[in-house]
């Protein structure tokens, strides 16, 4: 990873969905660059394209046109199998609804990410243990998700996201399903990770959390709204 070049660079990125005979432009001409170690907040109203943008950033979806450079590598047109490989090694996901696998214990959930990266078995357990210790969940390693509170589950999800040492952490409304106290705790955890050098892109509706980021971008109708336009929109609201 070069300190000079952005970790994420989107150039004139578009995403168009075709349903029946209707064409929907979910993202239009997105230009975005995220520097290493940056904490980026993404916000915007429903239908503005946040989800689509995060899907593309997380390599869950591919753009219709434009370029997506991840750590300087063009990844917009990768085959699904290559996207999966890259996703496992370079992207860490934190979902709003935690998305832990109910049939697996906490440590197995965290280890799952490493198994998909083909990390040797003897390396996995120490890394899982370290990740769980990092989020303060090592004492619940043998528990199943259903035995944990929402806040604890989200901390485990964070552990799963960081255990593979990804380039970027993508957080999709990470506090959306939590009460305020647990939400605060998760945000504190993300801030700590950021302070340690992690690059984070977080979708949030909460202005307070958005302000904690290094930079906050807003989406509207599939476009990133510039600062003046943003102020005008806020004034209208």
């Amino acid at each position, binding site marked *: 990873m070069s300190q000079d070049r952005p970790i994420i660079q989107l150039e004139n990125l578009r995403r168009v969905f075709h349903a029946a005979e209707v064409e929907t432009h979910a993202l239009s001409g997105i230009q975005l660059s995220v520097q290493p170690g940056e904490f980026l907040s993404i916000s915007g109203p429903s239908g503005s394209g946040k989800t689509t943008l995060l*899907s593309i950033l997380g390599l869950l979806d591919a753009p219709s046109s434009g370029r997506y450079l991840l750590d300087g590598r063009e990844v917009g047109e990768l085959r*699904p*199998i290559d996207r*999966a490989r890259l996703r496992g090694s370079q992207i860490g*996901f934190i979902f*709003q609804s935690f998305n832990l*696998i109910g049939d697996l214990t906490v440590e197995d959930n965290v280890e799952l*990410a490493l198994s998909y990266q*083909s990390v040797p078995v003897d390396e996995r357990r120490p890394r899982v243990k370290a990740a769980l210790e990092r989020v303060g969940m090592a004492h619940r390693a043998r528990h199943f998700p259903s035995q944990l509170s929402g806040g604890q589950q989200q901390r485990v999800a964070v552990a799963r*996201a960081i255990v593979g040492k990804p380039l970027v952490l993508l957080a999709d409304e990470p506090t959306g399903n939590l009460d305020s106290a647990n939400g605060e705790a998760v945000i504190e955890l993300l801030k700590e990770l950021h302070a340690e050098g992690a690059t984070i892109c977080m979708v949030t509706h909460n202005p307070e959390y958005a302000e904690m980021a290094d930079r906050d971008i807003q989406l509207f109708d599939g476009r990133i709204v510039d600062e003046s336009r943003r102020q005008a929109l806020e004034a209208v609201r």
Partner: protein
Amino acid sequence: MSGLLSDLWHDLRHAAGSLRRHAGFSATVIVTLAVGIGVNTAMFSIVDNVLLRPLGYPESDRLQTLTIRTPQRSVSTYGFGDGEFEALARDAKSFELMGRYDYGGGTLSGDGGPPEEPTSLGIDLGLQEILGLTPLMGRRFSQDDYTDGADRVVMLGEEIWRRRYGADPELVGRTVLLDESAHVVVGIVPDVLRFPDESEPIQVWRVRRLSPTPRMGWGSLGVVGRLAPGVTDEQADSELEALAAGMATEHPDTNTDRSFASQSMQETAVGSVQDTLFLLWGAVGFVLLLACMNSANLLLARAASKAHEFAVCSAIGASPRRVMQRVLSESVLLSLVAGLAGLLVAQWTIEGAALFGLQGLPRAQEIGLDGRIFGFTVVLATLAGLAYGLLPAWQLGRLDLSEMMKDGGTRVSMGPVGQKIRSALTIGEVAVACVLLIGAGLTIRSSREIRATDPGFDHQNMLGLTLWADRPRGADAGWNERFFDGLMERISAVPGVETVSIINGMPWQSMFDYSTNVVIADHPSFESGEPAQTKFRVVSEGYLADMDIPLLAGRQFTTADDRDAPAVTIVSEELAALYWPDTEPVGQRIQVGENDVEIIGMVGGIRERRLDREPVPMLYFPYRQNADIAMTLMVRTDREPTLVERPVQDAIWAESPNQGIWRTTTLDSLLAGTLVRERLYSTLLTAFALVAVLLAATGVYGVMSFAVTQRTQEIGIRMALGATTPSVCWSVVSGGLRLAALGLVIGLPIAWLTSRWLTDVLYQVTGLDPVTHAAVAVLMVLVAGAACFLPAWRATRVEPAACLRVD
């Protein structure tokens, strides 16, 4: 590689945990597959042990049974003359070793037990070598035993040694009386050796010397040979044919039109059941296919509920291959557990089949589960697991991951394609069940037709006792008649006996089959002068009437038809129709061997081999002119025949104390014996078809149940808008019936095509039998309707208000 294995281990561990926590789902799939795998394992065990495994003789792949072919008779494995064997053993270079055998009678007596006519086989040293005969104790026959003047020796079979002699180890070296002649017992032969028919073990093994004046032409020998290394069947057949041609030239009187060939000993032993067993194996393949389709359906339903979990895995880096590997780990794991359970199902299936005639198959005693069958089950289970897991795996490997980011990542689904695939699988299940059911229906109808066929005689309450008369050396020509007359007189006095008569080969007893050369002077069929081989029986004067075989013309035999009277015969209507279609057969004369014989009567034809075989032309000769020593006493009783079995045997021994009785049986049990294979086949096929119907019904139920769950809200809205309970119910049932109808549309033509394979085993029923096809179609619709009942009832219980609150 280690990474791949560790990934696999990880997935298997994950799958095991997941399946353990969803025990209901796991149990359903395991039971479904266990049935499919179990019946396949059972059938493979039968096919493998009966057909595929080499016979248990040394170098059995090179062992050939020599056969005789004549224009009149099809193929015979018996009947080589001593001279023919001698020439073949000397001149046939294609064989490195030849052995001979013949069946024989002989009464075992003089040891305190009742006289007994054991199954007996005379063999030579060559055959002993070919069979690898190794006694349990004692020794084999040696060259000395075949020299003139040597002590008479026998080996006894294990069964008779245990039963008659209490497994006495001291028996070896002692003498037993065989035909009142002392024979030294030199060894005990284990019962695992079941030469030559691979079903019943031989009880007495005798020394079979060649005649000092060996005859060519028809004799009493069976011949087995071991091919020389590198010699093919075709090369051996060519040489045998050439040798037969040479014999025909040298001995035209006996060997004209007499050709030799060979077939593998395995084919001789099991060839008669090969086609049917493979057919049944195919049928259980369909059952497994159904079980896999059903399990795929269940797994797809589960996949729909687990789509989100798999999407999470994909989101955190699982490749489509890895997702598929995970799904297949689950399906294979379930399948392997089902395979273990299937071994139990297989054992039960084999035990169940034993109740319905499995023991009637050759090599049946070898059927069972062992390491080889276990290996087959593991491979089959693994393949089944991969097969039924493939569709769900493919579906989950191509999830739309962008759904992950919507509504907190909880909306991932398999979309409408999943339901369509499930419906398609159910249609397939109905189609497969339809094919199997039609196959079973046809064999059941065929079986009923066979049982309903009139054999042409009354077989009820008829006891048959077959014996070889202990004719003294030098007895006069009339001894045989006097002996059997004496027996008949004694037996007639036994309470419960209505009539007694005699025949030299009772119906349905395959061992006795007699033919003779017939010529009819001035008849167009005999212009070439070549005789026709015609089946015959020698009977006492009361036999035809006692058996209720109708006299159609002329008269019955009387006691006056004896050696001093002109030679006479009675013909069957088939023989009359063959040679005198337009004239009266009675009064015609035929040449039988050297004798000019007058036809004095015509009787109805009988199905004396099997009920499903047409009556063949038959000659009956009076026993007072032709009595043999091997005859069967036919005893008609006024009660259950087995109740008078012992008193009748006592009557025989009262007349002749040391007379052995080879076999006592009823005609009904012989008839049952001829039907045992049909019974086994139709029972197995019916059982497989019922399993198939059950699986198809489960499939329809599963799909409709799932559809009702998916449509709960829609149904609620419909009811809120005024839909009535019957209309809601019908909407569900009609969905199931539509699947069944589509299944039938596919299944009926396939059944029509595949039922052609059944033609050879059907009797009086065609593969296109409309009754069977229509009945199966109606049954499948009814079953599908019944399978929809519970989902339909659930649909009518939907609370509209509760549904509308869901969103």
